[in-house]
């Protein structure tokens, strides 16, 4: 249980750091946000794999192997949505999704509107207000067709329209 408790603590701290860095002078630091995100992923993956290992001891089942960037079947640990500012364009979502990635959607690479989106124009997605999330997600092309639980303050449609 030690590892899972530590993982949880790290996750909680990472979220706290992400939130507090939003109000930092100079805007959100991309490097720092990325590292925090990687730590969160690490902690989340370890947490889930330890829990799965415990639960599946008597039965044999396929263990979900988390990939580096894609959200897989997540259960247990709810995570609110996280966004990055300071030059990044998109909401970086870490949400627990109840659905699996179907095999025909293995590659979640989307042709983002950001390729045609000039850097110097304001990006409304950078705004970190939860009430605007749904509007933002509907406007942007996103591969995140995941349900979010009540911890994420907004209910979003299950399937997002890509461009």
């Amino acid at each position, binding site marked *: 249980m030690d590892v899972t408790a530590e993982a949880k603590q790290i996750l909680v701290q990472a979220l706290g750091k992400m939130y507090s860095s939003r109000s930092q002078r100079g805007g959100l630091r991309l*490097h720092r946000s*990325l590292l925090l995100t990687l*730590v969160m992923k690490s902690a989340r993956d370890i947490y889930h794999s330890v829990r799965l290992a415990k639960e599946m001891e008597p039965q044999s089942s396929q263990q979900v192997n988390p990939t580096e960037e894609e959200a897989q079947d997540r259960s247990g640990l709810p995570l609110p949505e996280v966004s990055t500012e300071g*030059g990044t364009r*998109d909401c970086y979502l870490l949400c627990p999704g109840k659905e699996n990635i179907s095999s025909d959607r293995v590659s979640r690479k*989307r042709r*983002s509107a950001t390729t045609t989106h000039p850097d*110097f124009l304001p990006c409304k997605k950078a705004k970190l207000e939860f009430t605007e999330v749904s509007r933002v997600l509907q406007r942007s092309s996103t591969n995140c067709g995941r349900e979010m639980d009540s911890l994420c303050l907004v209910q979003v449609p299950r399937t997002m329209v890509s461009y």
Partner: protein
Amino acid sequence: MGEDGESPKINHSFLRDYVTEADVISTVEFNQTGDLLATGDKGGRVVIFQRETESKGECEELGESGEYNVYSTFQSHEPDFDYLKSLEIEEKINKIRWLPQQNAAHFLLSTNDKRPEGYNLKDEEGRIKDVSTVTSLRVPVLKPADLMVEVRPRRIFSNGHTYHVNSISVNSDGETYLSADDLRINMWHLDITDRSFNIVDIKPANMEDLTEVITAAEFHPQHCHLFVYSSSKGTLRLCDMRDSALCDRHSKIFEEPEDPGNRSFFSEIISSVSDVKFSHSGRYLLTRDYLTVKVWDLHMDKGPVETYQVHEYLRSRLCSLYENDCIFDKFECVWNSNDSVIMTGAYNSFFRMFDRETGRGVTLEAWRENSKPRAVLRTRRVYTGGRRRRGDVGVDSLDFTKKILHMAWHPAENIIAIAATNNLYIFQDRVKPENQ
């Protein structure tokens, strides 16, 4: 910085608590001859020290070299605001780089998060300061009105960067320089401020696919077509600009496979390279990650040829360092003039030097309470087990607020400049008279 002699009654911790954030030094750099030393701080100011030349070469009793005194101070960057993104732009100077001197004027580049700027410094009148009154250690003070240094209107290289600029590097051709932010590297001509050429772009089409950012970049000291950049994943990429206009594809990638035994929650954070420096010879690369400094041979990309532990005793404490944010600290590293010694900073005002020939490391301290002027620096030790010696510091007693992040080594001599919060320490090799 004009501090007078210490009285034992002064409570330095009181003073420490009141250090203005703006005075914290954020970069230190010698020029090519070592006669000028520039520092930048969080308040956007640049302070330049000049080495006194009168006593240089003279055989005094102790064989003293010239001291550094303030030559010029100016405001390089001001706080700014990006109205489109509603973001403040910090005035903190991230890097200063000198250009090779071509005439009587000196030229340097300084950059904050967004914008490199170039400054011309010219002596108005060459007055020689009288240094015969120097009898004790002086923290340099600004002497009014004698020497006028004119700082010419600057060149502003704007609108080149969307993300935070972390590095600038002057090319050996003396005409161009690069500036690197988290995702892109641009090349500029020193005389052209309204456009730059993008040479590296690692921004993914989908920002959700972002896995690494650029952390530092530098031109090769001799080959004007080569540069290197480091990433948050701990890799180094050597790029050749003759290959293609856009150097997204590296010519060589240097990475060390991760040791699975050391895997932890924080492996990604501690493997992020915070600084990369070419050796003076151009043959080696020096990198700093959170716990180590590594020397890489350009001819071998499988892994570093030398690895030095800076503070391995912190590996078991990564969790608390993560909690107090110290794990995100970015330390710099430097070579000495003949590439035989490397140096980097640590916590508790400690900095480390490693002799590449013997492989041995030494810990030194930049803290005025523990050293008198002109005294020889005593080596320090962090106690990690075994026999405890007097003066050893326990790991739990380390002060993580006193971090040595920025430093510079004189290009030709054994003179080092260490930035410790708002203080600048200059240490010189004591030259024995019989050696002169």
